[in-house]
């Protein structure tokens, strides 16, 4: 794997070598997509309640609604109050309907920013767990400004002067996921996916036929291995054999350890440096690709 921007600039080591290759290499891309969407897969609250047993969920955007598709609140983690965000899909059919399968409305992003401003006020670090097919594709979301809500959130995360670590724990679907994944470090569980469009949406765009989702998934390069190779995530957290749903406890411990390992150095980083690094993380996130000679001159003379 070629050295990427972050390994060069921050000296971060790539953790993929520690992954046991046996299962990963025998799974098809579509099997990974199915594991990421497995109905028994642990959801955000399963992790959050293990990480911070005293977790208190907070509700509402203070404008109009609460969005149950996003869980937000505070808990004690490694002896310090921490803000947790997480998409929550719902386990039973009734809960799935209530939580809208983890697809956020504009109020969800507004709730997240409200509580992020509290994190800044009180100096709490932020942990964000991402597990959504995407933002809700419905008329009500459009009417209440879903595009501007995501856009505003993406921009505001860059101006949030507390450490943020994020992990994709299931589906990282498009802009709806990115709106909760602008962080200093972004990790992925082994059998999670992160993509510009869902395989169904991509198939619908390419062939006008979302039944060709398997072919689309193969093309999209959406597995944790792909994203690590592209330099989009810092680490892939291995899952137990069979997938995360086989062993909640084991997966939670592995995820928690990885998140803590990445958060620790951020806690002592001066705020200016933290925000500059977050800026550069995304500003040059495509630097691996952009280093290609066809891409043109990289260094620009100052105006």
């Amino acid at each position, binding site marked *: 794997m070629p050295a990427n921007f972050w390994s060069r600039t921050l000296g971060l080591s790539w953790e993929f070598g520690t992954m046991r290759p046996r299962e990963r290499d025998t799974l098809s891309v579509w099997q990974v997509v199915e594991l990421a969407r497995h109905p028994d897969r642990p959801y955000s609250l399963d992790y959050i309640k293990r990480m911070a047993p005293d977790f208190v969920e907070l509700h509402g955007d203070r404008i109009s609604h609460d969005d149950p598709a996003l869980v937000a609140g505070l808990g004690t983690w490694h002896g310090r109050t921490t803000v947790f965000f997480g998409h929550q899909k719902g386990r039973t059919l009734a809960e799935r309907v209530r939580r809208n399968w983890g697809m956020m409305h504009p109020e969800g992003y507004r709730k997240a920013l409200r509580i992020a401003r509290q994190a800044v006020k009180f100096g709490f670090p932020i942990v964000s767990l991402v597990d959504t097919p995407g*933002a809700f*594709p*419905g*008329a009500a*979301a*459009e*009417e*209440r*400004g*879903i*595009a*501007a809500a*995501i*856009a*505003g959130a*993406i*921009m505001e995360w*860059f*101006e949030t002067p507390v450490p943020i670590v994020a992990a994709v724990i299931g589906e990282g679907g*498009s*802009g709806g996921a*990115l*709106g909760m994944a*602008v962080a200093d470090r972004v990790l992925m569980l082994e059998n999670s996916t*992160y*993509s*510009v*469009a869902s395989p169904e*949406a*991509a198939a*619908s*765009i*390419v*062939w006008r036929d979302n039944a060709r989702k398997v*072919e*689309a998934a193969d*093309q*999209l*390069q*959406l597995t944790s291995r*792909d*994203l690590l190779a*592209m330099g*989009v995530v810092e680490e892939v957290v291995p899952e137990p054999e069979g997938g995360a749903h086989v062993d909640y406890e084991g997966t939670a411990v592995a995820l928690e350890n990885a998140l803590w390992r990445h958060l620790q150095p951020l806690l002592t980083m001066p705020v200016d440096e933290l925000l500059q690094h*977050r*800026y550069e993380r*995304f*500003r040059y*996130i*495509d630097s691996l*690709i*952009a280093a*290609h000679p*066809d*891409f*043109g*001159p990289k260094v*620009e003379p*100052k*105006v």
Partner: protein
Amino acid sequence: MSLPFRGRVREGVLLVSMVHVPVTGTKLPPIALSTNCPSCGVGLVPEELREQAYVCDCGHHFRMHGDAWIALLADEGSWRERWADVRPHDLLDWKVPKPYQQTIDQARQEGLNEAVRTGTATLAGRPVWLGVFDFRFVGGTLSIVAGERLARGFEQAAASHTPYVLVTASGGARMQEGVLALMQLAKVNAALGRLHAARVPYFSVLTDPTFGGVSASLALLGDVNLAEPGAAIGFTGARVIKQATYADLPPGFQSAEFQLECGQVDLVVPRVELRERLARLLDLYTG
């Protein structure tokens, strides 16, 4: 064609400017048109339509593309394009329905240079940075090169305190560049945050159509969001919403006028008034 320019008050004195702001900076280039207007059905005379900035007498605004927008907004001879030599290439080995590299090469042969072009110009004498989307290049989709040109432009506009004028027309992020195209939303918004932090005015002109990753990143974050009459603007396209929710969508759903009502845009401005309006806003925000 020109419109009278308004006076303005500065330090208690009404300054009446006799300057007229022409509707276009330069004569617009010819564009491909259908034979009849899709709104009123009238037979179109291309040369006449070109003289009225590609707006039908009935008010229908025809889609314009990158070069036409530059001609409309930039004063004659003022356009200095930047980073035109930064080129896209296929990084995911994308094969369906046709190879991405072939798409890129074909667009290039047609004289198109990516979905976003950027540079400096003067607009009615006022220095600006311009960024224009071109829907002809893979649906105006946000790609690494498009994102790079936008981010560099925002950074330089912030450094030189030059107002930025953006014209959008896009289907969203470019699928053929995978998750790196999605990451452009964060990349351009990071740079846009710096522009805002530097207190440099940013005006976003939304044209037909503006969707997906572009409306969910830079398009709706203007100090002023202006939209063209009748332009379709939203996050998820109407076809996908109908498929996903079986909803009946009201007529005019996601039109510029609908978004004005929903509080997403400040102004719906006819194309012939756009330059005058931008000039006025530039004066107000830098006055």
